[in-house]
């Protein structure tokens, strides 16, 4: 389980990448990751390519992030989900609130 962040060379996209398990153990790390972003960012990407597990606490964390960033960035994208993770997001109607690819 780990969380890493990166900013694209043009400074437009901020990516949070979560490896392994996305659950309440990441509450602090996840929050401090997105509170750092500056206001003129175009997009925040949560890259779940390497996320094997997530539970409802992760969903709460994502919603919290959306509330905080709403208005600050143009889009929040959840990308590279595995089918089972995508299913969890769909059941929770996250496709209405996030751009999921």
């Amino acid at each position: 389980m780990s969380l890493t962040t990166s900013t694209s060379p043009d400074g437009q996209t901020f990516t949070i990448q979560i490896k392994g398990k996305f659950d309440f153990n990441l509450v602090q790390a996840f929050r401090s990751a997105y509170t750092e972003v500056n206001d003129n960012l175009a997009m925040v990407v949560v890259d779940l390519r390497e996320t094997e597990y997530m539970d409802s606490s992760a969903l709460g964390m994502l919603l919290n992030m959306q509330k905080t960033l709403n208005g600050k960035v143009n889009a929040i994208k959840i990308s590279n989900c595995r089918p089972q993770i995508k299913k969890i997001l769909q059941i929770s109607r996250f496709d209405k609130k996030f751009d999921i690819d």
Partner: protein
Amino acid sequence: MKILVVDDQELNRNLLQHMLKFEGFDVVLAENGRQAIDKCKQEQPDLVLLDVVMPEMDGYETAPLLKKLSTEVYLPIIFITALGDQDSLRRCLEVGGDDFLNKPFDRVILQAKIKAHSRIRALSMKTFEQNKELDFYRLKTEREHQIVEHIFNRALEGNYHIPHLLDYHLSPASMFNGDIMLVALGPTGNLYVMMGDFTGHGLSSAVGTLPVSRTFYTMTQKGLAVGDIAKEINDILLTLLPDDMFCAATIVELSSKGQSLSVWAGGTPDMYIVDDEIGIKTHINSQHMALGILEEDEFDISTENYSVNSNERLFIATDGVVESFDTDNQMFGYERLTALLNDKSQNSIEQIVNALTEFRGNAEQDDDISILSLRCGAVNSDVDNFDDIYSSLPHRMALDLTIEQIKHADPVVELIDMLTFLKGAEFHRSTLFLLLSEAYNNAVDHGLLRLDSKIKDHEDGFIEYYVQRAERLEQLQDGLIQVSIEYDPATTCIHFIVSDSGSGFNVNHIDVDIESDHEHGRGNVLLRELATSVSYNETGNQIKIVYKLNNNPLYHE
């Protein structure tokens, strides 16, 4: 040195025996051809002195039989003869004689001839020994090649079985292929294909394929982006390969619906996206240096992305194709290749291979040749095919977690790891995790710690909730959580039962409204949607979740 003397006259035999013994040779005697053959078999002489005219079997008849007894090493036969006519001498040579000795015997000539022929025999014996040794090494090498070949086959054994999308032709210039083609399905149903070409060909360049394939399969299983896979392989090759060896490679990822193509290419010939009707639609040039050259910090993971559809194929070939030569030393070249690809009646892999073979004619293939075509269609990952591989054995595990274990251990992932050893369960890993995680965390948070989910609804409540959770868990004096997991092969159902020693809650008040903006209750909705069934006991301190592995709608959408 042992010499066989064959003569029917006792006088001659004795005379020769005397002379030879005086020179220090061992002597064996025979009175006629038949005896000579027996003696030859028994005594294994190094040289034969053979009389021509003898009763029973004469010298002409005996010589070829003696030669036959020693086919591997040269056995000199010197005819003893008083005959001086050309015909007789010629006949001696024809039947296998190597030299003549005239009667009466001259000691010096006899000595010279024996010496000369024994030198030839010594040489012949040496050659024989060396041949034997060579044979030994040849067999040993063959055996080693077989072992290595076996290892390669096992290591490169991949998922080539995607016939509706993938067509390919691999033709190594020697026994071992320095080209490598790897195919793997990623966790999101995406398809990865790698085509690589190591410097040179043969065994020395094929060794590099082993670490590459291992890395490729590990990374694709994790579902990494092609640029990251390339970087990983680059790092491995940088460490393992000598400086002058590297691997030109293309790594592509086709999305599960076959609509987008992501390409990382380093040091490879042009690739083409070929439309079924109009031919070549896009040229893809390699943007990077080959793998195994650049240091970690210089490496560029950027990829090229293309929107594709099912009327298109990606065509990749190693440089062995365009750099094939015909008997006039002409190169096949890009022009011939693109002409074929642009002609829709000529551009199947088979037709291109045939055209290439025809072009080359009798010229030797001097590099490995690999060609592949990837149809950009829906991947249809084989998940459906796993239906029949669910475990047929009933499994059960149960554990009682004491207060110390609840405080310090994180049992869910460990249990899921164990559970997914069960045949057929691996593909449900994330879902199984979610189910058990929700049940277990509810037992801890609400059963034992009596936390109120409504805290999460307050401003910053989410953090507050987990701060309180940590505090209460620290202070908790006693408590027990029991987890039982059972698998029923008849229904392919996994039953989770999680009970806690808390006082329970009113099971009728469980919040299941997903549309509400409440921060809590989301877990219960997920449980109900993903599980086959969810139930509680009356007191509300035990939850039972059933999840059916087979026919889970997730894989039949």
